[in-house]
């Protein structure tokens, strides 16, 4: 039913159907945890983990789940993997877990996951669902890293915790505050829209 090559489903998440900039899903973690690049990478990978595993499991079970109760079943499966990710982060990366705070459990209601399941994994086979989830997850992670880098660079003068800007640069505190998050996100979205227009 789908004539596009399998690799397309992996690549589309990076730019063409980037979950953050084009589908405008998962906005809450995008804004909240991107004060530094490290937090962005942690959040992105945790979400990718949950996304890939729940998409694969649901794709395997897609013919067994009755249509009427599907949202409930999906959420319970997602919540299970989120609990796993949360316990893992708490045990091995306690600092990161503290920095992300309630946004790790909030992956449960991240619309990217439910969106990809509803739109893709519940209708396609396991291999395609896996590629789709992986692509979307990496696209999400990449966007978070870009946003985190911009905000960290302008707000603190560092990148991944290493000072890179010369000492005469006075960090703009506003960039790591909520306001900076909204500004960066809005500007990035505008730029990506403009780039798309030039290409087409």
């Amino acid at each position, binding site marked *: 039913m789908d004539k596009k090559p399998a690799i397309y489903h992996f690549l589309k998440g990076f730019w063409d159907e980037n979950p953050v900039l084009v589908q405008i899903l998962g906005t809450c973690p995008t804004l909240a945890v991107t004060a530094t690049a490290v937090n962005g990478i942690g959040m992105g990978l945790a979400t990718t983990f949950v996304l890939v595993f729940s998409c694969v499991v649901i794709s395997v079970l897609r013919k067994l789940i009755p249509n009427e109760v599907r949202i409930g079943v999906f959420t319970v499966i997602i919540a299970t993997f989120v609990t796993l990710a949360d316990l893992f982060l708490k045990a091995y990366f306690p600092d990161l877990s503290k920095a992300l705070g309630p946004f790790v459990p909030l992956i449960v209601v991240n619309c990217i996951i439910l969106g990809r399941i509803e739109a893709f994994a519940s209708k396609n086979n396991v291999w395609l669902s896996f590629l789709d989830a992986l692509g979307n997850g990496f696209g999400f992670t990449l966007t978070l890293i870009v946003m985190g880098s911009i905000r960290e660079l302008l707000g603190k003068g560092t990148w991944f915790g290493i000072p890179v800007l010369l000492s005469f640069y006075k960090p703009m505190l506003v960039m790591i505050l909520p306001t900076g998050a909204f500004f960066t996100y*809005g500007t990035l979205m505008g730029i990506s829209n403009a780039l798309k227009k030039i290409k087409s």
Partner: protein
Amino acid sequence: MKLLLLFIASIIVNNFVLSYFLGICPFIGVSKRLDSAVPMGFAVTFVMTMTAVITWIINQLILLKLNMPYLQYVAFILVIASLVQFVEMFLKKFIPSLYKAFGIYLPLITTNCAILGLALLEALKNYNFLESIVFGVGSGLGYTLSMAIMAGIREQLELSNIPKPFENAAITLITAGILALAFMGFSGMIAL
């Protein structure tokens, strides 16, 4: 007095949308017009209050007593999903006019991260029963407030001349940034 402070703090100082970044999706999706933004805000307030009460009972009296806090996420999301379903059925049967007014927004509340965020924050901060209710109502009203302000601004934005790539979502985010800047003025007013 502490309850009053908590109430005011959760409306303006710790506004869910503008300082915690919770519930952004409906904040951008539904804030186009004032007459859909305000009912949505009140629906969220209602579900938030109910969630605050029920998750408090489940968390404090069942999960913590039985030493199973790791079931929190699964339990909370099930409570929220069934609560939204219940509210929907109740309104459909008894207040059909309100049910029609809420329309599609009602089921969408399940995936609004503000609701789950409320339940998690409440468990994290270990509020007692009364504080939980006040926190729920206050956060809901704060959500409604920011939705209403945003919708008012967006109705004006439609008339202004925005660069093409920045239309819709992008300009809304930048406007929200300016709003967050304004709300930052409240921070530090109440320390909790």
